[in-house]
């Protein structure tokens, strides 16, 4: 963390905005969180894997769109309020212009342009990118009985049984905190 802190100081607002713009534009068809990890953790190394993953869940608990919250988290960590604004503008500016253009076409011609097939194909690859994130991050943090149990419980409750996220977290978040809480006496 401390060696990462030294390089963080040099990040410019423009670089933050451009990085989040890149994340947003690369995610056509979906896979925004996988792209966020690809840029923030792998390419720029602004955050460690664990810090990024836990931030993702925090961003789900706090009101607001998850990806918007994540941009604010990363931007604030890098450069305070100015960083948060740069990340938000980078994430939203070009996509808003694009989606309003699509809206104009849709409401004028009553037809979604013939990109539907292309987006359907892209979404299959976006799912692959998200699965890849599961495999790569899983190799690093699923290293014991408790982590694997938490992982499986979250997947089954939210993905298979389709419980609402808040109920899943209501049960699993306290369990995971109890498991991960630093216990000095036991270890000393």
């Amino acid at each position, binding site marked *: 963390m401390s060696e990462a802190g030294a390089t963080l100081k040099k990040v410019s607002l423009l670089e933050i905005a451009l990085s989040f713009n890149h994340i947003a534009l690369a995610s056509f068809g979906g896979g925004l969180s996988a792209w966020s990890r690809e840029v923030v953790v792998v390419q720029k190394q602004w955050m460690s894997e664990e810090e990024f993953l836990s931030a993702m869940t925090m961003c789900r608990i706090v009101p607001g769109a998850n990806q918007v919250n994540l941009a604010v988290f990363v931007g604030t960590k890098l450069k305070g309020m100015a960083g948060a604004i740069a990340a938000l503008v980078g994430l939203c500016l070009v996509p808003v212009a694009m989606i309003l253009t699509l809206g104009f076409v849709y409401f004028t011609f009553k037809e*979604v342009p013939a990109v539907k097939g292309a987006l359907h194909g892209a979404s299959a690859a976006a799912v692959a990118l998200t699965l890849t994130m599961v495999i790569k991050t899983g190799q690093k943090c699923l290293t014991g009985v408790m982590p694997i149990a*938490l992982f499986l419980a*979250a997947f089954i409750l*939210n993905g298979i049984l389709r419980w609402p*996220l808040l109920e899943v977290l209501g049960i699993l978040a306290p369990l995971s905190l109890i498991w991960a809480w630093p216990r000095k006496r036991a270890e000393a």
Partner: protein
Amino acid sequence: MKTYLSLMGLFGSLSLLSIGGGNTVLPEMHLRAVSGHHWMTNSQFADIFSISQAAPGPSILIVALVGYAAGLGVAGVAGGIAGGLLATVAMVIPAATLMYLITLSWQKAQKSKLRYAVEKGFAPLTVGLILATSLVMSKAADHDWRAYLVTGVATLIFVRTNTNPLIVVGAAALLGYIGFV
């Protein structure tokens, strides 16, 4: 003017109600935009939902399209664009401000036990939720065996090689465009 005030009021409050992500307020958004304000029809809402899911950027930008439809009735295309921008700002700013304040105190709590436990404990939980997301994503996109095949091959490429993901996503988009997927 009244329409714009309604837009700001609606999305400003939905912003802070969207606990668990933007998708949680979609039913309320649908109700208010279609039955409450009559900004659009039911099938138009379904169409803008799929546009916002597929378009690049956060899927919460569906609010820009709701705002566009609302403004369209007031002052044509220019009114629509104004409505779209206003709806986006109203949806993003309140929650983002809250997130900013939370992040600030989180950054100060560098050495706290809670932060240590959250970073260690939430990681496996998050990986499970992401796996759930990818399952839900492919179901929502109505994928058949060919799409699953593309997903499988693309996953292999991502895990085994260092290929730029954009090339793979682009190739899959091309497959979709020519009608394979």
